[in-house]
């Protein structure tokens, strides 16, 4: 009898314990993550699995690649994880499990974390795929650096170059800045103080129904991707570039003077400000962008035939997707075929440009595109009277981009930065407290990075 009572008691106790516990590996995150969308048959024997966080890669596979390599194309299974934010969590789990039918053979990696994968054991050296330095001769150097590990071995390859620009909406510029001339507009974005003044002008001219930017974070990428030091140095001590401080201060000024609508990038309100008319509904006159931003995000009716490109106050870039073959890639030959098609071969990269007007990571292809006049009007997005050529505009911006400050942890660090910037702008914290808190939060998340 005693034994039975003991067993029952133990069972009850064990079950009760589970109620209180939140085991590290039992965290149910599934509900908050978007579902994967899988195209193709992952169970087939010769399936070749490609991972991406949106269908950017898929569109190129479905278009120019399918046309050039129909047999290989039919084997491709595409996994779209539905968003960049949870991509790493999903990807890391499956990378540790090569027997999973959805284990990627090839995957897309965003600049904010490409260095993490390039520095890992998960991805292959492209030399082992038979890709040589000659194949990469036309690439932009900054993309080669982003895809290479600490020893200079290239492990991820990029098909686009992503020089930054400020994209101005012509009708609003005419109304509130009195010009649509690209040179005159460029002068209004020449440096950060001028940008603040331009923002004040727009605010005053419109009475607040139109603002220069939707949120102060339009300046974030310009400042962050033109830093001279990364978020930590060679000895893993956290370092904050003076651009970080500059960004805090600019954000505060814009907040205090109500120069933007204080929206967060990618939020619904941020998108909504793309479509407003600036009189009866709120509108933003300009967005920070780059070539992909034009065909990917700024696609609304209000911007069709209205986009004017303006150089950023500092040379910068935004995003870009690296392709990497995994360590247990089932078919390295096909991986090499796809990677070369996307990132090395001039003709195929001209075809990618024809698909979406992208600025490809191939200087020879870019020259050919400009020569042929292809996508000169950004596939109908540019404002014709400004007389700009979409690809030609970016040529000087693309040369000499420096991505040496990018680290493997940038995505998370930038999200910690957002929190502190907001706390500072709303007056919750002083600048030095916010900066110290940023460092502390980085160290707390990545214990191997230290605060001096």
């Amino acid at each position, binding site marked *: 009898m005693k034994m039975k009572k003991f067993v029952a008691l133990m069972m009850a106790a064990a079950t009760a314990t589970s109620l209180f*516990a939140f*085991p590290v590996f039992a965290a149910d995150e599934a509900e*908050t993550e978007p579902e994967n969308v899988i195209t193709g048959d992952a169970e087939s024997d010769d399936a070749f699995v490609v991972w991406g966080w949106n269908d950017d890669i898929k569109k190129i596979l479905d278009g120019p690649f399918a046309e050039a390599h129909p047999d290989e194309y039919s084997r491709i299974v595409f996994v779209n994880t539905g968003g960049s934010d949870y991509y790493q969590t999903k990807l*890391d789990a499956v990378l540790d499990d090569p027997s999973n039918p959805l284990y990627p053979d090839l995957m897309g990696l965003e600049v904010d974390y490409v260095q993490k994968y390039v520095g890992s054991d998960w991805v292959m050296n492209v030399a082992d795929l038979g890709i040589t330095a000659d194949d990469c001769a036309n690439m932009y150097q900054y993309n080669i650096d982003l895809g290479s590990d600490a020893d200079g071995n290239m492990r991820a390859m990029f098909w686009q170059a992503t020089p930054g620009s400020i994209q101005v909406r012509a009708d609003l510029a005419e109304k509130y800045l009195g010009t649509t001339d690209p040179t005159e507009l460029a002068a209004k974005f020449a440096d950060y103080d001028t940008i603040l003044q331009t923002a004040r002008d727009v605010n005053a001219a419109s009475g607040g129904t139109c603002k220069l930017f939707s949120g102060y974070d339009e300046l974030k990428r310009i400042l962050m991707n033109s830093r001279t030091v990364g978020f930590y140095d060679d000895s893993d001590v956290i370092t904050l570039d003076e651009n970080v401080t500059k960004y805090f201060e600019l954000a505060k000024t814009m907040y205090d003077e109500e120069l933007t609508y204080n929206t967060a990038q990618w939020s619904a309100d941020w998108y909504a400000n793309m479509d407003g008319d600036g009189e009866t509904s709120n509108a933003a006159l300009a967005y920070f962008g780059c070539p992909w931003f034009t065909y990917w995000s700024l696609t609304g009716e209000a911007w069709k035939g209205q986009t004017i490109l303006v150089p950023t106050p500092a040379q910068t870039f935004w995003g870009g997707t690296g392709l990497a073959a995994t360590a247990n890639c089932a078919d390295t030959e096909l991986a090499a075929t796809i990677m070369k098609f996307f990132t090395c071969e001039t003709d195929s990269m001209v075809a990618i440009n024809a698909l979406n007007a992208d600025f490809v990571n191939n200087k020879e292809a870019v020259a050919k595109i400009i020569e042929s006049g292809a996508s000169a009007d950004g596939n109908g997005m540019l404002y014709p009277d400004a007389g700009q050529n979409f690809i030609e505009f970016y040529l000087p911006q693309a040369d000499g981009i420096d991505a040496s400050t990018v680290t493997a942890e940038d995505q998370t660090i930038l999200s910690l930065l957002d929190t502190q910037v907001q706390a500072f702008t709303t007056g919750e914290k002083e600048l030095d407290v916010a900066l110290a808190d940023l460092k502390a939060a980085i160290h707390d998340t990545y214990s191997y990075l230290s605060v001096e």
Partner: protein
Amino acid sequence: MKKKKKGVSYGKYGYMFIAPFFIAYLLFQLWPLINTFYYSTLEYYKRNGREFSSFAGIQNFLNVFGLAPGEKAYVLQYLGNTVTMWVMNFIPQILVSLLLAAWLSNQKIKLKGTGAVKVIIYLPSIITAASVSVLFHALFSQYGPITKTLQNIGIISPTYDFMASTMGTRGLISLILFWMWYGNTTLLLISGIMGIDPGLYEAADIDGAGGWQQFRYLTLPLLKPIMLYVLVTSAIGGLQMYDIPALFNPTSTGLVGQPNDTSTSVTMYIMRLYNSDVGKAATVSVVLFAVTLVISLILFSTMGDKEEKRLAKAERRRAK
């Protein structure tokens, strides 16, 4: 002398029927739980997909409580956030649920359509938390319809933004939790009230006790065991709140609760750490476990039925 066995023992079939649960439980719950304790003693972090681990003793605990040089006690801050949001949802929830339960179960006032009401108030808890979060965010965002309406009729200032306000965001998260779970709590309390002997109410009626007196001196004390159950399960669920705060007003990566880290729950913190520092994540889990355990024990000891215990004790003494 050995007892002689009489008849067939059916006991073992009972064990066989419950065995699947316990096997699954041991493998998928208890084992991870024990592992979590083990991991909390390791310096175990990931960098560029590679894992590094070594024994660290109690170092992780010193770190998370800010006792080691250069460390900040984030876990206390996030516990504070979590408890605040839970209390702000629970107090109104239990009051409203009690009121509804008393009304819906009252035989004298004979409300019509109580069945429909019970179904309707239960419905919100069926919807996925993800959808609810996104819906409320859309309604209360900077330019959301409710925010705009409240601004236009002058209840909040024209520049007020729930998403930039600590109390605004916490209040709304509490409101969502309240809205999702008050139906569930009401049903539990109704079932508790139904279990009370109607004869007691009749006797109270004859003695001339009014509605409030009956509620105060009959319903409430006899509802105590159910109240304890509701409180304990809600506290456990509340301390582990994840999906609502993680989706309502986070930074893009879903790991920091805006504004200024004031809507970050402990479990969001665990998820943030899990991707980079497993040892620390495990430590925070253990801390959360301990806090939950202590809170539950306090609730049990303060709300447990003392009268019954006293009677049981007297009974035992008499038996001796």
